[in-house]
């Protein structure tokens, strides 16, 4: 790990002001990083992928609204520094929006969930082995224009949706999928004040600039996630398929929520994990279900539509069928829920 200047922030505005200024270049070259749980940042600094000169520890802000979950009928507000474990065990989150609690509970391990924050979780970097090993010179995400070692390498874990010729890295998290399925907003604080955007607008597809991870301005900090809860969101779940039964990233996952009345789908929400370069909202699949009676045939049609644009490489073609089956099962289970 390279040495860095360590600063503890005692207010969001201090944190934002302390963040070293600079223009938005490749993510790995950011001169500053906020430290929350550190479970992704310290890991990536140890292996020399992230090399900040300045680390701004924001954990003291947990005693501000950033560390709090607040719920009422209009709004479910999750502070960015809330630990994954605390949100996963929160009774009202489990009752009102089970997909959120499940996506967190099925992620990482309890030690990691005790450390990791919700804000850091959403911003975690890909687990692409060529990104994480700096001895590979080809990685467009780390070194723009250098090529992509995964395209013709070992790409079993890589994405089939949202890829480009420059990068096929999978977005590894689970929680962001649950958020986008519920149309959550993310609140941000930056040098120019505060703003809110939809979580679905936070991550960038790789396109021809895989080195740019998000739409955040340099130094912009996540302060909270906000969900407008509707009663039907109780009918929601997260299904995650992995190589082992626990403590593993998704091969394929689905966050689903459904507004169902007398067997008819009024609203369906689908977000996919493990198969795409960003948290992936499957709108075409949702449209096929909406205003129809729920049936197995419709669930299959939705699953087919969700993967219609899939592009596979040598080792990851299995993810198309696995992803469809995952989604179909998730839809069938959510439709059968007592909500």
């Amino acid at each position, binding site marked *: *790990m*390279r*040495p*860095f*200047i*360590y*600063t*503890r922030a*005692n207010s969001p505005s201090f944190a934002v002001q*302390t963040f070293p200024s600079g223009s938005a270049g490749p993510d790995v070259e950011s001169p500053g990083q906020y*430290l929350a*749980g*550190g*479970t992704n940042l*310290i*890991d990536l600094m*140890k*292996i020399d992928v992230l090399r900040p*000169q*300045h*680390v701004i*520890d924001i*954990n*003291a802000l947990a005693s501000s609204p950033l560390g709090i979950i607040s719920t009422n009928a209009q709004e479910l507000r999750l502070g960015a520094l809330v630990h994954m*474990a605390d949100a996963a065990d929160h009774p009202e989150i489990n009752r009102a929006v089970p997909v959120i609690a499940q996506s967190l509970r099925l992620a*990482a*391990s*309890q*030690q*990691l969930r*005790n*450390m990791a924050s919700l804000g850091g979780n959403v911003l975690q970097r890909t687990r692409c082995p060529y990104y994480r090993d700096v001895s590979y010179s080809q990685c467009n995400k780390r070194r723009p224009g250098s090529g992509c070692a995964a395209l013709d390498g070992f790409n079993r874990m890589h994405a089939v949706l949202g890829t480009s010729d420059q990068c096929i890295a999978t977005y590894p998290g689970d929680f962001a999928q649950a958020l986008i399925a519920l149309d959550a907003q993310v609140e941000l604080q930056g040098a120019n004040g505060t703003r809110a955007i939809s979580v679905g607008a936070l991550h960038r597809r790789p396109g021809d600039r895989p080195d740019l991870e998000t739409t955040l301005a340099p130094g912009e900090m996540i302060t909270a996630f906000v969900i407008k809860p509707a009663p039907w969101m109780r009918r929601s779940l997260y299904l995650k398929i992995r190589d082992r*039964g*626990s*403590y593993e990233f998704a091969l394929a996952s689905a966050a689903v929520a459904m507004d169902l009345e007398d067997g008819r789908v009024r609203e369906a929400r689908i977000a996919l994990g493990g198969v795409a370069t960003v948290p992936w909202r499957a709108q075409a699949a949702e449209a096929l279900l909406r205003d129809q009676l729920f049936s197995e045939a419709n669930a299959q049609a939705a699953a087919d539509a969700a993967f219609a644009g899939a592009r596979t490489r040598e080792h990851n073609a299995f993810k198309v069928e696995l992803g469809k089956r995952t989604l179909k099962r998730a839809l069938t289970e959510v439709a059968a829920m007592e909500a």
Partner: protein
Amino acid sequence: MSNNRASFTPSRRKFLMTTASSAAGPVIARAFTGEARAQSAPRNQREPVGVRLEVNGHVQDLSLDVRTTLLDALREHLGLTGSKKGCDQGQCGACTVLVDGRRVLGCLTLAASVDGRSITTIEGLTSPGQELHPMQQAFVDQDAFQCGYCTSGQIMSAIGCVHEGHAENDADIREYMSGNLCRCAAYPNIVAAIKQAKAATQSRLASKET
């Protein structure tokens, strides 16, 4: 012979204490503020950071390279080598310790970020000559290890698991202990040990002991 050696060779622990001043005693521990100290303007990247930790009831003032993890602070600076370094990447759980009673991974925790916090390691569960912690005893009784490399992490994680209320049944224990890998695959016996020690661990928590 061994007496002579002891009087001429400072123990590893004593030697390491020269990098750490230790104000011992539970009395001081109770007065511990538990708050990170304010820290002002950015300084030089190579300048050591002052970190105050309460480790197993003793206040320790350390001066550390800013990159030092909690695991390295415990092992290399305080001589507490019970917490193990397995992967150093957050993947195995061998480095599990309790920070303010919650189980975390020492290898991904920056020591500076837990300034002002209370740390409990395997060494803090009991003292020489005293009874083992019920979780330690259960691991012995149930033969819950072979090589023992993962064991201190398993035991600290198991105590955290019981405290959290995540040891309700076998499936629950397996799920919430999945962050602790055991290369010797002692898993069934680890589950049995946690079940054996659950009630005693809960009653120790009720009486404010780890």
